[in-house]
């Protein structure tokens, strides 16, 4: 099966007033269909930059990057992915349903189709009945769920998530992680997920990409042996601990020479 994302020697250099900044250097990665891939690493390791490059929000300056066999730009125009940002970023002047409709309006779906899809994705993120509420009437966790619904609304095969739960407390985060796994299981989407949290990365992923900064690069790629069905308790098993340990080692190795 053709890979969903294929990166070969990808480098990305920002030209700043203080000289060039190497955000990414020689990144090689293949993401297969249905993978749940986490990118983990300290600030400045390029994990968000890489996700943005996949989304064609940044352009690599070296190497080749394809999404569904196309350039990232073409893939975006083909509606290959939905993107979830760190903040929910809902429009305060639109209801939850109105917010989920936003991409559908822009992409020119019919009114009936819009309503049907809003209904469907709100159910998927367990927000049925909240469509008429305004964002400020919802908690932070619910707002982030609405923003996931918005990213799912136009049925892209890829879901790119940039620290979507970073601003939420741990209890809410655990719940949303569980729900995200369920959603991934039910929809078979390919997910790219940026996070700071080792347990979150290990719990969610089939593949964990450990990155380190200056220049941003991949130091380890871990294929998770955990089953697709993952109750929260799996986090207390030795297998889980072993992967978490390896991630931690990888992060430490990346840091060893600049601490």
């Amino acid at each position, binding site marked *: 099966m053709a890979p969903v994302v294929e990166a070969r020697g990808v480098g990305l250099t920002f030209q700043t007033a203080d000289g060039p900044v190497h955000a990414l250097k020689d990144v090689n990665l293949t993401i297969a269909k249905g993978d749940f891939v986490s990118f983990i690493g300290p600030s400045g390791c390029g994990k968000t930059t890489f996700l943005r490059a996949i*989304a064609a*929000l940044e352009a690599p300056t070296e190497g080749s990057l394809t999404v569904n066999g196309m350039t990232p730009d073409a893939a*975006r*125009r083909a*509606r290959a*992915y*939905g*993107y979830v*940002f*760190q*903040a929910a*970023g809902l*429009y*305060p*002047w*639109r*209801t939850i349903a109105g917010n989920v409709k*936003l*991409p559908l*309006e*822009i*992409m020119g779906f019919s009114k009936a189709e819009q309503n049907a899809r809003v209904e469907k994705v709100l159910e998927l993120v367990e927000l049925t009945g909240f469509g008429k509420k*305004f964002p*400020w009437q919802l908690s932070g966790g619910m707002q982030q769920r609405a923003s996931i619904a918005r990213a799912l609304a*136009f049925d892209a095969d890829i879901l790119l998530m940039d620290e979507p739960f970073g601003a939420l407390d741990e209890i809410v985060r655990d719940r949303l992680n569980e729900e995200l796994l369920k959603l991934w299981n039910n929809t078979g989407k390919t997910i790219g997920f940026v996070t700071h949290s080792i347990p979150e990365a290990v719990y969610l992923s089939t593949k964990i990409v450990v990155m380190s900064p200056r220049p941003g690069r991949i130091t380890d790629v871990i294929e998770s042996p955990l089953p697709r069905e993952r109750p929260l308790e799996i986090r207390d098993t030795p297998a889980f601990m072993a992967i978490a340990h390896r991630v931690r080692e990888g992060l430490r190795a990346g840091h060893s020479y600049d601490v």
Partner: protein
Amino acid sequence: MKSTGPVLTVLIAILALWYAGAVWMNAQWVRDQAERAGQTVTWQQIVPETMNQSRPVLPAPHQVAVELWKAVVVTPPTSKRSLIYHAWVTLSATLLGFAIGTGAGILLAAGIVHNRAMDMSVMPWAIASQTIPILAVAPMIIVVLNSIGITGLVPKAIISAYLSFFPVVVGMVKGFRSPDAMQLDLLKTYSASRMQAFWKLRLPASMPYLFASLKVGAAAALVGTIVGELPTGAVAGLGARLLSGSYYGQTVQIWAALFVAAALAAGLVVVIGMVQRVTLRRMGMLR
């Protein structure tokens, strides 16, 4: 109501200061009169004399109140002596000018946000336009428009628009640029066009800025119209009323016209505030 106390206190303080000012400023005239008659006057005699002069330096509050009552309530609005009549002349030009100014301001702001050349070129001119004293420009506008056959409401409205477009431009540029990078990135992930970004994100996001600008713009529009009426020999309008008042030393008439102008400006701002509340509530942006 909790606010009644402080509001009344301030009002009474203002009235007290005003009366004190009236006594102080009008006393000289009383003394001059007495001197001419070869008499001396005490303060007890001066104070009542300062309250009801026909051409005081500073009319007492009750004189202005009486004049307002006569010119607004007693005189029928069709009369040329009615302040309602003059206020309407001024208000109609103000509303037209405000509409032109607001429209032009929003269009210019949209251009500035979307076009780099406009961004670099328009703002300096807009700022420069506001540094020119409107009093100097107004007669030229009236004369030039007169010579091509445009008279009456429109020249005044243009002067009023000239003053009111500026706060709208400044506010709306800020408003159109208020969505953060993440919001714009989000639309980019949908491959949204600039038009879509404008209608779906920039315009609704700019609404709170719009109303703030409109309030400033409305007051500026009114000033513009009155200034447009001043140097042009206008026969009607609050500006004309102020001018004729100053020609004939009718200070009471001037003050009455000033109060009507202030009430008009306050009324405009209140109406905009009401529209703002309704709009933002409909948009769900008012909690």
